């Protein structure tokens, strides 16, 4: 399912003295099956934007095309449930939305809301647990008896169980330790590959965006200021620093090397493997001469 936004604007509390423009001039094109990272500071409008992907918020100007859905500003769209099935959102700290007595029931809650029978849902819990890397034993446990990291996985399984075509992730690794973070990010990358899911990742982490995303959207003060592939985005480091954003360490390192050695690498290094490879080439070249 493709996502296309044209000139979308969102104002909170419109027509009141508290009116606030949170988004403006938003043009977005997200291809079905791609992995897009949305980056920006707290307050840049990225949370507001992601709530437009399943109609939790509707534009106050412009048009949002979400697969077969077209949401036009001013027309209140009523039947949004089918859309919400197609676009799953994992909010920040999703473990805060757990409420059932058992993990199984909590995971089945979403799919059953969208019309799956209890039998079918229960029969498939094992599959969903496996998707998020949880053992079968947790099925009948209370979600509140699990560790923080496991609770988060249960909550994510609850969203994956709706079998969405698009998965929107809002800071899914916040508060996790380094190992937990890496496992979680690899899990999403796998989902994209295996299930052909479209993934929209909202993050503060430049490293994550550089490593996993096909496309990057940078938001600043309510609008999109840069977009492109990671290579395009990280080619212009000063620009990012100017926007007050962090730059991946790989890119910073590359810049330091380029300045010291007076050379230019052909491509930005987005992962530590890229850096390794570039240096390897550099050093073998000297050896060969």
């Amino acid at each position: 399912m493709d996502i296309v936004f044209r000139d979308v604007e969102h104002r909170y509390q419109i027509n009141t003295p508290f009116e606030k423009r949170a988004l403006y001039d938003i043009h977005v094109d997200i291809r079905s099956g791609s992995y897009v990272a949305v980056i920006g500071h707290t307050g840049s409008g990225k949370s507001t934007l992601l709530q437009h992907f399943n109609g939790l918020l509707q534009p106050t100007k412009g048009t949002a095309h979400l697969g077969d859905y077209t949401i036009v500003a001013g027309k209140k769209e009523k039947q949004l449930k089918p859309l919400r099935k197609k676009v799953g959102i994992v909010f920040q700290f999703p473990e805060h939305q757990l409420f059932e007595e058992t993990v199984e029931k909590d995971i089945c809650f979403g799919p059953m809301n969208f019309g799956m029978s209890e039998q079918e849902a229960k029969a498939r819990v094992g599959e969903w647990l496996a998707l998020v890397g949880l053992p079968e034993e947790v099925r009948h446990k209370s979600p509140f008896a699990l560790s923080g990291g496991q609770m988060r996985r249960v909550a994510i399984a609850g969203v994956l169980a709706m079998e969405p075509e698009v998965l929107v992730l809002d800071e899914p690794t916040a508060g996790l330790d380094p190992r937990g973070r890496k496992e979680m990010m690899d899990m999403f990358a796998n989902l994209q590959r295996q299930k052909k899911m479209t993934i929209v990742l909202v993050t503060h982490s430049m490293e994550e965006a550089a490593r996993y995303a096909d496309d990057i959207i940078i938001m600043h003060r309510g609008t999109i200021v840069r977009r492109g592939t990671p290579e395009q985005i990280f080619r212009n480091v000063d620009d990012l620093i100017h926007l007050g954003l962090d730059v991946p360490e790989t890119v910073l390192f590359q810049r330091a090397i380029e300045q010291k050695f007076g050379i230019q690498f052909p491509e930005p290094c987005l992962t530590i493997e890229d850096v390794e490879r570039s240096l390897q080439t550099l050093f073998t070249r000297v050896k060969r001469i």
Partner: protein
Amino acid sequence: MEVAVRVEDVSFQYANEQTYALQNISFQVYKGEWVTIVGHNGSGKSTLAKLLIGLLPPTSGTIHVCGIPLSEETIWDVREQLGIVFQNPDNQFVGTTVQDDVAFGLENRGIQKEEMKKRINEALKKVRMEDFIHHEPHRLSGGQKQRVAIASAIALQPNVIILDEATSMLDPSGKKEVLHVMQSLRREHDMTVISITHDLNEVAKADRVIVMNKGKIVLEGTPAHIFSYGEKLEEMGLDLPFSLQLSRRLKSNGIPMTADHLTMEGLVSELWTLYSAMSNIVTK
């Protein structure tokens, strides 16, 4: 050197649990030192934090804070020595405004109004929140709330500050704010800091690092010393600084690095030395 916190052979077991959450922990923190206790979630570091501030009594072993043995009778005296900043910025903000929050601890200690005023202003200035004195908490960012929490702690003039995962719920800029404030506090006021964390930047800032895994202390030393155990740390689910990771990778690729670099500058300059040496040999 004067000892601020002494932990001796402390073990702890939660009721209803088979295994020990902490096993024979011993360490000391000296006055003016910044010690970081690091470990992945479930390593026992949060339990240790609870013991240090007297929320849980050790199953065995003793804890001394500024010479006072921690027990049920001395708990209030011990807490007067400590200032603690917790993880969740919202759940430690007691006052309805910034100044009320800093005042709360002072009121509890029976400090007179004039002195309170002085200390509130000073504390807020130290964390650079003086312009927000009348702000309500819901109008502050996470980083700002944590800075107020630090102000609330230092207004009570504690001997030791404990940061109990104080940055783990913050965004990158919030994390930076809090660490900056803590560093400048330390530079100017010679404070003893114990930070409990899994954040790499907090590890690098420390004078000494204690690594915990499965309820035990597995490593102890300067950040450079700790990071030299590269793989061991990764096995325990901890991160390594980028320059260090890269140094190791290059070494295994046959580039003759002499050291594992903790800083990017160090790594770049060694690479340059190697590179120019090699190209010199070739041109000769």
